[in-house]
């Protein structure tokens, strides 16, 4: 053998070993894998949604509605200002189209009241389109840049909100991506039983609410007395009294709350209450996840859910927020979220907190209490949310940032509309895999038999190349953590069929050369050389089709395109270079040039 042959042998050997290493996590059960594999090669092929079962949803975000909403809010802000600062009472404000605010002043001369002093805060957001002193009509329009920003924000908002909700639901590997004004949600492995529930959770509107906790109530005392004791086979609910004093007046507050490891336990308990213990219609129970504390007041790793008995009406909601930012708690250094209300919100907040000093105010996000601080004084335009989360500061900061994203537009400003949905049950998926495997085996067997009959011993080289091709393909898919879909398997099967094409082209060439009377070694070399561009062109055109498929395709079709593309690349490698090397190994023994070749 020539020296270069051995170098190639080392290279191909190395590539194959690496491929096998990447393949191990996918094919060997986790408990049987060697330790170093578990340490360095964890990537594996994921089963796509159609094979694993799961839910694929596409939501269209009504971004125009978000823009219109923004314009409405600006309109009422300015109206409010004119009313308070300028004493304008006879004024009609309306929105025309999506972007225009039209003010009609009476008398017309009042239009001068909409001056720079009023508009100075809106210089960037609103453009003055026209101003007519004779009719008293002023037309303002939302700046096009602002329109873009609002639209963009609404989309990102939607994604953030959906991600937060899906994460809370604990789906293993959700994919939530933006495509145009659509949001695509893929939830592989989701159980059929949860489909309906998660759809309603995703589609719900994110709502930030502030509610006053009704402490020291007769009702909670009665409820607490009815809770079965834990030591007598109770429901796992503890009664926890709590008390605090008002900062300024030192007036004491006492309350009882219920605590349990599970939120469901508490919810079931309250649902089961009837008659005298039934929840008053104007009140409701809120739940907060808290950290357990030992006798010394130190935090323990336990997590509990606790109840708040609070007024149902939320005088203040996220709709009145004008801004939110991620900041740091001055004392603890933990990330927190500070927010600001708009003028109307500030007025409501002042009244609401002023009337309830010493009580607790529950801050609810999507029906879950985020925190419930004691109101120590009148709160105006600003407030903050301390994150109730636990864990490392980085994760907390992320959480704070997500919260900022949600709060900045309050509740989802743009309604989501579901436009596409695919549900796949798990049995359907498993069955498809089995059937696809059968067709793969049969296809491969047919190709193997054919190559052996037609090309005899050289057929073995083609088969070896095909097997290595499969190995490399699957290893690359595993290294990219690609998800294997049903069409993806079809792509694999198809690659088996197409893989031998390059071999056939080359072998037919070699035969032609042999027929011309060339020696085996020359025939092999020139056969490979002359077939190269044919093989290359054929692969490139297929690759082009694959790229178009990938960029156009959605979901499963992408899976097909990915396997096709990977297969084309590895196939060129195995069926040309690797096969050439194998032929060299067979025919190229130094000194003893072979007279015949079984082809």
């Amino acid at each position, binding site marked *: 053998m020539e020296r270069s042959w051995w170098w190639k042998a080392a290279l191909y050997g190395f590539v194959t070993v690496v491929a096998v290493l990447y393949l191990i996590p996918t094919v060997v059960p986790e408990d049987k894998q060697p330790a170093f594999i578990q340490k360095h090669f964890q990537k594996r092929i994921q089963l796509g949604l*159609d094979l694993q079962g799961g839910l694929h949803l*596409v939501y*269209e975000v009504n971004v125009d509605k978000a823009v219109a*909403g923004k314009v409405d809010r600006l309109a009422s802000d300015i109206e409010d200002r004119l009313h308070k600062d300028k004493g304008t009472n006879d004024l009609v404000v309306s929105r025309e189209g999506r972007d225009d605010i039209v003010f009609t002043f009476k008398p017309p001369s009042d239009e001068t009241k909409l001056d720079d002093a009023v508009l100075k805060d809106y210089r960037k957001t609103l453009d003055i389109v026209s101003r007519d002193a004779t009719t008293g009509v002023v037309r303002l329009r939302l700046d096009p840049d602002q329109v873009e920003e609002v639209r963009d924000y609404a989309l990102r908002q939607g994604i953030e909100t959906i991600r937060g909700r899906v994460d809370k639901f604990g789906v293993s590997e959700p994919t939530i991506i933006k495509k145009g004004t659509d949001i695509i949600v893929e939830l592989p492995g989701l159980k*059929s039983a949860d489909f*309906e529930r998660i759809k309603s959770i995703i*589609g*719900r*509107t994110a709502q930030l609410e502030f509610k006053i906790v009704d402490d020291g109530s007769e009702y909670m005392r009665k409820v607490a007395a009815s809770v079965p004791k834990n030591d007598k086979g109770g429901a796992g609910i503890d009664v926890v009294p709590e008390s605090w004093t008002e900062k300024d007046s030192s007036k004491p507050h006492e309350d009882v709350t219920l605590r349990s490891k599970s939120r469901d336990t508490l919810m079931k308990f309250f649902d089961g209450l009837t008659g005298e213990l039934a929840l008053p219609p104007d009140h409701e129970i809120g739940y907060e996840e808290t950290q357990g504390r030992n006798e010394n007041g130190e935090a323990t790793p336990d997590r509990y859910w606790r109840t708040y008995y609070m007024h149902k009406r939320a*005088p203040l909601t996220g*709709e009145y927020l004008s801004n939110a930012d991620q900041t740091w708690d001055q004392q603890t250094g933990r990330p927190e979220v500070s927010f600001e209300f708009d003028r109307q919100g500030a007025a409501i907040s002042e009244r609401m907190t002023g009337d309830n000093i010493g009580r607790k105010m529950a801050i609810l996000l999507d029906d879950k209490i985020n925190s419930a601080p004691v109101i120590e004084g009148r709160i105006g335009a600003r407030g903050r949310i301390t994150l109730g989360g636990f864990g490392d500061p980085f994760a907390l900061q992320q959480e704070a940032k997500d919260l900022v994203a949600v709060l900045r537009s309050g*509740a989802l400003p743009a*309604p989501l509309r579901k*436009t*596409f*949905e*695919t*549900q*796949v*049950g798990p049995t*359907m998926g498993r069955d*498809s895999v089995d*059937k*696809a495997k*059968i*067709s793969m085996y*049969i296809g491969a067997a047919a*190709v193997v038999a054919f190559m052996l009959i037609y090309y*005899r011993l050289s057929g073995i080289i083609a088969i070896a190349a095909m097997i290595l091709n499969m190995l490399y393909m699957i290893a690359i898919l595993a290294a990219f953590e690609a998800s294997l879909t049903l*069409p993806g398997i*079809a792509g694999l099967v*198809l690659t088996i*069929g*197409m893989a*031998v*094409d390059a071999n*056939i*082209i080359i072998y*037919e060439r070699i*035969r032609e050369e*042999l027929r011309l*009377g*060339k020696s*085996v070694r020359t025939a092999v070399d020139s056969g490979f050389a*002359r077939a190269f561009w*044919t093989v290359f*062109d*054929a692969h490139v*055109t*297929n690759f*082009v*089709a694959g790229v*178009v*498929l990938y960029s*156009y*395709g*959605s979901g*499963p*079709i992408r899976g*097909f395109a990915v396997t096709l593309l990977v297969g084309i690349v590895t196939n060129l490698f195995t069926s040309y270079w690797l096969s050439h090397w194998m032929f060299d190994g067979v025919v190229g023994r130094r000194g003893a040039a072979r007279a015949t070749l079984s082809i």
Partner: protein
Amino acid sequence: MPATNAHQKFVEIIKPGSNYEFIGRQKYWIGLSIVLVTLTAIMLPLNAYVFKSRGHMLNWGVDFRGGSEIVLEFSKPVEAGEIRKTLADAGFADADVVKYADPTGLKKWNYMIRVAAVSVVSEQQAKQIQESLAHEGNATLKRFEWSEGGDKVYLRYDKPVDPSSLANSLKAIGVNTNQVQTFGRADENTYEVTLVGLDTEIRRALDARLGEGAVAAIPSVESVGAKAGKQLQFDGARSLLYAILLIMVYIAFRFDLRYGPGTVVALLHDAVITVGAFAVTYKEFSLTTVAAVLTVIGYSMNDTIVVFDRIRENATRLRDRRFDRIVNQSINETLSRTLLTSATVLFVTLAMNWFGVGVIRDFAFALNIGVLVGTYSSIFIASPILIWLNDKYVISQKRQQSTGRNARRPRRDDDEPEV
């Protein structure tokens, strides 16, 4: 012993030196293609306007047509007619009910139903809701928002309304809801109604008629809003166009301009006939089918290029031959490869067609047709067009020569008499 003798025993399907006449008989083959393409062109409107049971040019899948496709697994034998009737009573008129290929081999009764609706509330029902909820307590409905395909309804009143009483009113007129809650600012009095999913509603209707637990499982649901369907149709057409353009650019770059049109006409021919096969059999034409057609295009290209590569090589080697003879010879030389590759790919796609389920099956069907037509078109469509273009090209070169330009042009293939 000379090396030539040592290799006489190849297993061969086409003997070397065979010279089948392809080009001479091209008019018959082109005639056949024209018939097939015309058949496709006739079949599409026939499907749409003449065959009442079909009603569309192609059997568009839900992804193009919009609507919902639901696979139902029953726990006992059920007649398709009974399902259809139950669905009609539940407000889903014109439901397609098809026996679904039993995927597990166990004794189960599976049906696939296809309904035009995406949401449980039809346009008619939406009107009904709007009318019957116009007055809720002492509040008056100011705005009603509903969209086809949406699973939400928005109601705006002039005065606050109790969400739970809204839910009850909706239930009274037969609309089941998951949730009714306030939406937006409190002073806007807007309520968001989340409707129950279509599959849940259908299951409820069937269980009510056939007994509780009749629907054992719902293995799959797919629903697409009409607008999304249009978008997908557009995307599909666009992707085919891009694929063809890109391939043409590559051919022009790798070969020369004469080779481009033949390849493109051949692959269009293959794409059209594959679609035609779907028109005739009225198999479902879905997104996956588009993917299959794109694959067919790739395959067809692959095939044509192998033949063209040989033509190009022979054209430089055998300058003294007439071009159409070179083409015929090149086709013969590559014939065994063409047949062998097609055979192996066909093996595989047939296996996929026989053993595959659902999506794979239709996909494989498209490939079966595509492989057959693709093999045929590279010989009988692409090559004649290449010859025709070459003749045009050479004639124009000749004219240039006779007017004195380009006088030092190298000798062309047809300057010589036929060998």
